[in-house]
């Protein structure tokens, strides 16, 4: 029995390391879990990108769910993600609101000109204050906010068609059932 002990320990170590590798493959180490999920989204009033005189606030969007997509023209991963939104925006069934983060409005407009504009409305947070309230730490990020203004889902990093089918659409469908 004592002879087997080192071998058993070795197997245990192997299992531990194997678990570590498997876990890292399925989890993004850099992803910070959002404490906002299940809580009301922070209050904000931000100017519109295309009409800085006007502004949009969280209260104006109450009553129906929407997606809030944080992007910036300076963000390479947003370019990667953007076509997915352009494609999927039609059949999501809820509005997609753009959140232009720490960007030059002229750059943002040129960027949207080039890659397409899937957004129903775009708010601009050039200072980054509201982004901190939302716990944004790297674009792109996407929040699903329900009719009551509660954050339901957060995606850090680019969305993929697979993510939209497997996570986002079911989450949106679940909202419809919960709030008639």
């Amino acid at each position: 029995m004592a002879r087997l002990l080192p071998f058993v320990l070795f197997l245990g170590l192997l299992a531990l390391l194997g678990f570590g590798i498997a876990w890292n493959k399925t989890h993004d180490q850099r992803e910070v879990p959002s404490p906002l999920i299940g809580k009301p989204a922070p209050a904000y009033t931000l100017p519109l990108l295309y009409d800085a005189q006007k502004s949009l606030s969280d209260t104006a969007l109450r009553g129906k769910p929407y997606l809030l997509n944080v992007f910036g023209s300076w963000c390479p991963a947003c370019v990667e993600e953007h076509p997915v939104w352009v494609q999927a925006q039609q059949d999501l069934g809820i509005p997609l609101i753009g959140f232009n983060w720490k960007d030059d409005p002229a750059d943002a407009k040129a960027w949207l000109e080039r890659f397409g504009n899937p957004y129903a409305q775009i708010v601009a947070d050039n200072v980054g204050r509201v982004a901190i309230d939302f716990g944004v730490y790297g674009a792109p990020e996407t929040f699903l906010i329900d009719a009551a203004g509660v954050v339901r889902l957060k995606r850090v990093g680019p969305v993929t068609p697979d993510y939209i089918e497997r996570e986002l659409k079911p989450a949106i469908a679940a909202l419809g059932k919960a709030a008639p």
Partner: protein
Amino acid sequence: MKRAGALLLWLLLAPLALAIDPLPFKDAAEEARFQALARELRCLVCQNQNLADSDAGLAKDLRTEVFEQMRQGKSNAEIKRYLVSRYSDFVLYDPPLRGKTWLLWFGPALLVGIGALVVAVTVRRRARPAAAAAPAAATAPAAGEEEDW
């Protein structure tokens, strides 16, 4: 020699100071408090740097946020709570002690304890057959088994 040392220290610290955008501190005490607080907070973009060291855009914004909240008269604990409510415990370099983090805090000590126990048991076991083997060396298969270790 002393001056050369001071110069060297200054040169080593200079990049650190440059990474920090000038904030209008009213006195040295306020700056010291800010720096100490910023060192306890993690930069979320470059996750192995603290807020004081990082030159990332978000770190700059967060430093401004921390500074302004300090000016509003908030305590360090209140500022940390604000950031934790948005970025989770991850922004703290020292995770708080609670059920979920118990293993993180005491795991290493636990492992050292287990190691010490194993060493103690092994040493004792080796000492015993050696003492017993002295009168009857050939008839001790247990001692032979121990040698594999």
